[in-house]
């Protein structure tokens, strides 16, 4: 499960020896995030975000469990119980703001983690399983975040729930019964709020389970790295501890400064004012918008404004919105280039940056009202989004001529590697 030169766990204290023979938990930690896990020595700061995402998950679970002690999941009092937390619970305002902004921080970190994966093709063999589990985690996060946003039972909670559960109504024939079954009624009400609370509490632990599988799968081939050249020898790696624990410690500090600045000085900046108005089924907000981290997908949903042959526009939008994420599952097989890192793929790299800008444009349009010119812009941006993954990527990877790769990670870092003369280049230049 690791490289032959990985350091072995040798318990010193008698208690640790006793424990190691019976339940080798310290050994597991040592091999997972300790000195027993050799990691490429050339990781850049983009490799900090996995640890940060794990930190955010823990933060959300801790703050969330405490908030649940004070929150009441009942449509009659949910809004007031949130205000009770803000005003009367000791440090309740801090817990709630930490949790609400923690969700935003989690998504910032995870988006950077995912786009790191796009640029360095972290999804390629032998790491497909890590990628698949990662996309699954992202889907679970979206479900969890959506249901969490419903809990304060403000105007955006209610109308967001109505719009999103309404998407299931687009399914032909069985859509409406499914929607009513999911909501436990014809519109979001107490039944929906209660089940959303229950699932919002459950799903983070499901995420934690999938995260364990994600990390397990990571430890089979080991971490990828910015050159995309696999680890060949001991000089290519350093032990995770202390090298990357130290680097992640610094990364965590920088992350926390940004997160706490938001939490303490602009905690409502990323929220919508309408969610401080109690839910009112009789008054529709002028613009129903989800939280910012859903905006790119919301823009794709709304980009389909005309029926396409026999497919209603709404169903088309729902299909496209889900496909926009599901397509990530197929990336390992759509991108056939043998070179991983975008640094050595001149053509791919340009399209990657277009995708980044495209996603930002989609995000902006998703947060804007559904009127011109935003609808047309999001249509053009959505065209590129699908074309990028489904058409451009398979073609580019077939016709692109990658730049020559370094022989090894050691050569990439030190400029030379004595072993290089003995072996052919990592990837034949004609590939």
């Amino acid at each position, binding site marked *: 499960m690791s490289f032959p030169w990985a350091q072995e766990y040798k318990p010193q204290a008698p208690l640790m020896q006793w424990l190691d023979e019976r339940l080798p938990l310290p050994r597991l930690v040592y091999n997972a995030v300790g000195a027993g896990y050799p990691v490429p020595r050339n990781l850049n700061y983009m490799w900090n975000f996995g640890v940060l995402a794990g930190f955010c998950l823990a933060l959300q679970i801790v703050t969330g469990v405490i908030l649940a002690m004070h929150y009441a999941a009942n449509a009659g009092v949910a809004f007031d119980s949130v205000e009770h937390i803000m*005003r009367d619970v000791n440090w309740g305002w801090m817990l709630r703001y930490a949790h609400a902004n923690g969700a935003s921080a989690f998504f910032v970190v995870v988006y950077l983690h995912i786009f790191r994966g796009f640029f360095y093709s972290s999804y390629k063999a032998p790491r497909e399983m890590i990628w698949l589990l990662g996309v699954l985690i992202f889907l679970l996060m979206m479900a969890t975040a959506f249901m969490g946003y419903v809990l304060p039972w403000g105007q955006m909670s209610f109308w967001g729930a109505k719009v999103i559960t309404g998407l299931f109504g687009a399914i032909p024939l069985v859509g409406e019964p499914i929607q009513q079954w999911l909501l436990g009624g014809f519109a979001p009400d107490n039944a929906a709020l209660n089940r959303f609370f229950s699932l919002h509490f459950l799903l983070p632990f499901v995420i934690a389970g999938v995260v364990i599988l994600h990390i397990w799968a990571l430890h089979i081939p080991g971490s990828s790295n910015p050159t995309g050249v696999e680890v060949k020898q001991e000089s290519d790696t350093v032990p995770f501890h202390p090298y990357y624990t130290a680097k992640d410690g610094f990364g965590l500090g*920088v992350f926390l400064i940004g997160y706490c600045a938001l939490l303490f000085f602009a905690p409502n900046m990323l929220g919508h004012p309408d969610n401080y108005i109690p839910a009112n089924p009789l008054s529709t907000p002028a613009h129903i918008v989800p939280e910012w981290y859903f905006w790119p997908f919301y823009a794709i949903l709304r980009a389909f404004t005309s029926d396409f042959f026999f497919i209603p526009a709404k169903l088309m939008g729902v299909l496209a919105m889900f496909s926009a994420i599901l397509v990530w599952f197929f990336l390992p097989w759509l991108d056939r280039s043998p070179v991983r890192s975008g640094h050595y793929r001149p053509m791919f790299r340009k399209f990657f940056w277009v995708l980044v800008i495209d996603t930002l444009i989609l995000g902006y349009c998703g947060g804007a009202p559904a009127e*011109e010119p935003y609808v*047309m812009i999001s*249509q053009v941006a959505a*065209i590129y989004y*699908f074309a990028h993954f*489904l*058409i451009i990527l398979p073609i580019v990877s077939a016709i692109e001529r990658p730049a020559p790769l370094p022989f090894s990670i050691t050569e990439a870092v030190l400029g030379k590697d004595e072993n290089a003369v003995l072996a052919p280049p990592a990837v034949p230049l004609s590939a």
Partner: protein
Amino acid sequence: MIRIISIFVGLFFTVALLWSLGNGAAAFISEPPHETVEHAFHKHPKDVHFASDGALGRFDNQQLQRGFKVYKEVCAACHALRHVAFRDLAAIGYNEDEVKAIAKSFEIPAYNQATGEVKSSPGIATDYFPPVAYGGQGSPPDLSLITKARHDGAAYTYSLLTGYQAQPAELLKKFPDAKTPDGLHYNPYFANLNLAMPQPITSDDQVTYTDGTKATVDQMAKDVSAFLIWTAEPKLDKRKQTGWAVLGFLLFATVLAYMAYRNVWAGKKGH
């Protein structure tokens, strides 16, 4: 094979989007969207500053007390403040006796489960501001959270309170159907320009200030907006104070973490 399928799926989505785009563009050209009266005449809130603004701002208790007086004598006739308890007023500088006296001046209705009677009695410090019975046109919102429930918060409430005016002649010339209906009042800071609330603060000295501040319309609007920042976020001062302590600690810890990182990596070229 998967790449062939992928290209077909990609074409399916792009063609469907082009179809939507084409229809949208055709509709846009044949029937360009006409400007709405709200779009043309709605104004962004005025530029106004409060003591609590910014990362270093703190509440001005004198101002909050003046603002409370404006709320009590003007707004409270129609608007409730249900998330605020009388005891909370201690935070803006009232002493225990003053809080009790304020509470006593409000009648708190209590519903008796057994008899079905509703009986009112003078409030005590632990009571919340009571509901307000309102029978007129419109539905006055509860004000507890109003500065967090509107874009631009207190700047919005201040602009609304000082923004009443006669409907501009230019508006009626451009949109003859947009005359303010009877019973509504024109205000360019309100989302749809016409609201049911008549101008609440109409003249100087409408509320008697006892701290020597001149009670101009502008000052009263500003004071009550400041008070509503406090009702929406009573822990604002503590939040910012805590924030500075947290950021100070984090900065220190991050510098240490950076030094530890450099120290650990010393000798590993490339870092």
